[in-house]
């Protein structure tokens, strides 16, 4: 699925990711944990193709395709989905219109037929219900006037509608209370499948109680400095990131 090899990324000429290597096989969920400033958000933005993140070395491929050569929209059509830490508000574009436009653009890019309005609405209703979202909210401007928890739920809604193959969750738990965290996690867990991989980026172990990872990696100073099973997350929660500061 996702293969990152010796990746180097600079932001405003400052190296942030410094030789990161990671293999994420199909169907697996890997957590990336690390202290603030380790490069967690830089990694997620680089994989999604945001401007200003300059790849100075290394490769990132999705099923053998060079991700880094594609623009963000083309990456999305290949199946990449980044769930934003701070989802944007887009006044004037109803959430449903936004998602349908995105879905049909992806389908078009993949040479698939567009989804018709009735089928789309049926799916949207079912998905919103599963996430306990008020369907009427989806007719309003995307994320406009939404609470932090509602915005995160909207991200999961989009994820469920777009059915990506590679999910990158960037600090999805930030700003969520326990109830919202549970609903969002259930939404994510419902998407776990053999053909779908997830990269769960988080500072705290809390989210991993709900979304159980197959592997946990510690990111410090721009590199993976330790990897292990789910127990590594508990160890980090107990001991903190101090011992990896020297390793980096």
């Amino acid at each position, binding site marked *: 699925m996702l293969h990152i090899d010796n990746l180097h990324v600079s932001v405003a000429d400052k190296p942030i990711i410094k030789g990161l290597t990671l293999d994420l096989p199909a169907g697996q969920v890997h957590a990336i944990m690390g202290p603030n400033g380790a490069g967690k958000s830089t990694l997620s933005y680089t994989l999604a193709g945001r401007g200003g993140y300059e790849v100075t070395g290394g490769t990132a491929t999705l099923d053998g395709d060079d991700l880094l050569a594609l623009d963000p929209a083309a990456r999305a059509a290949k199946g990449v989905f980044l769930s934003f830490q701070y989802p944007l508000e887009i006044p004037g574009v109803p959430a449903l219109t936004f998602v349908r436009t995105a879905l049909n653009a992806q389908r078009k890019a993949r040479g698939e037929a567009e989804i018709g309005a009735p089928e789309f609405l049926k799916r949207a209703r079912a998905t919103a219900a599963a996430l306990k979202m008020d369907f009427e909210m989806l007719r309003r401007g995307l994320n406009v006037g939404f609470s932090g928890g509602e915005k995160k739920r909207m991200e999961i809604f989009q994820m469920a509608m*777009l059915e990506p193959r590679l999910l990158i969750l960037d600090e999805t738990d930030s700003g969520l209370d326990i109830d919202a965290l549970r609903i969002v996690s259930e939404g994510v867990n419902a998407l776990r499948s053999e053909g779908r991989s997830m990269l769960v980026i988080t500072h705290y172990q809390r989210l991993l109680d709900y979304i159980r990872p197959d592997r946990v990696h510690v990111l410090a100073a721009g590199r993976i400095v330790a990897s292990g099973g789910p127990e590594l997350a508990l160890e980090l929660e107990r001991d903190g990131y101090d011992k990896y500061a020297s390793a980096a």
Partner: protein
Amino acid sequence: MTGLRDALLTRDETRLPGRRDEDWRWTDLRGTLRPMPVLSEAVQPLAPFDAPQGVQVRRFAAPATAGTAEASLSVAAGETLVLLDRVEAGEGPYARDLALHITLGEGATLHRLVLAADSAEAVSMSLTTVALAAGATLHQTVLATGAKRQRIATTVAHPGGGAHARLDGAYLLSGARHSDQTTILDHRGPGGSSEQLIRGVAADQGRGVFQGRITVAEGADGTDARLKHNALLLSGRAEIDAKPELEIYADDVACAHGNTVGALDAEALFYAMSRGIPEAEARLMLVEAFIGEIVERIGAPALQDAARAFLADGLEALRR
């Protein structure tokens, strides 16, 4: 305020306003109309096309070379008029000057939508003067796609007395098109209100101009006047010039004006692209949403539909 009409009728090009005239420095006609075109015919109102029910439609053709038209219209006390003015684009270069004088009686309401289409080589001027009576309501929306030089000017004589004027507008400019929306709101008596929201988009080498002057005369106490102009520059060679002005001689007034000019929000663009929407489409979507707010504010549904169709064509031109 428009010198094109005088110049055309007298064939005296020294009457053309130019860049040295303060109110015309961004819409220079003297340097543009050279030689002066010869008056070909009066601009004839065309037969209205399939007008939506309850909407009065007026269409203005483009003259072969140059033409002027002047008309008056009044809405009687307590009456409501829904008016669609369509200024049709002609071919090639022409000069057109339209003047309309509107009077609203006490408690009268006018919903007016102006759809200003012109050829890229046209010089097209229009001036609307509106005289409001107490308790009258004016809701005007101007949508423009520019010309070589295009100005749509509106002056409102506002008596206060609970009357309300809303002057909204939007311009969508591509190629080397220019569009100027100029408003003069003259609050002359106490207890009046006005609001203006103008949104503009300039791509390529487009040039957008907004001039909005609000005067609140001595004694026009309690006036509430608000004006906002927001513009997007979609290219490094596009230009926006804005001049909001407030002149206040009364007490206890609430006046506000805001003006912003910027690029499309790069974060929003990345967000949309990260969901699979290609860049060109994402840009158009954000532009459409930006301008769309103007359409949402139109009170008459039939006018809203006409505005949407016009903007769809304007957006299509941006895509090319």
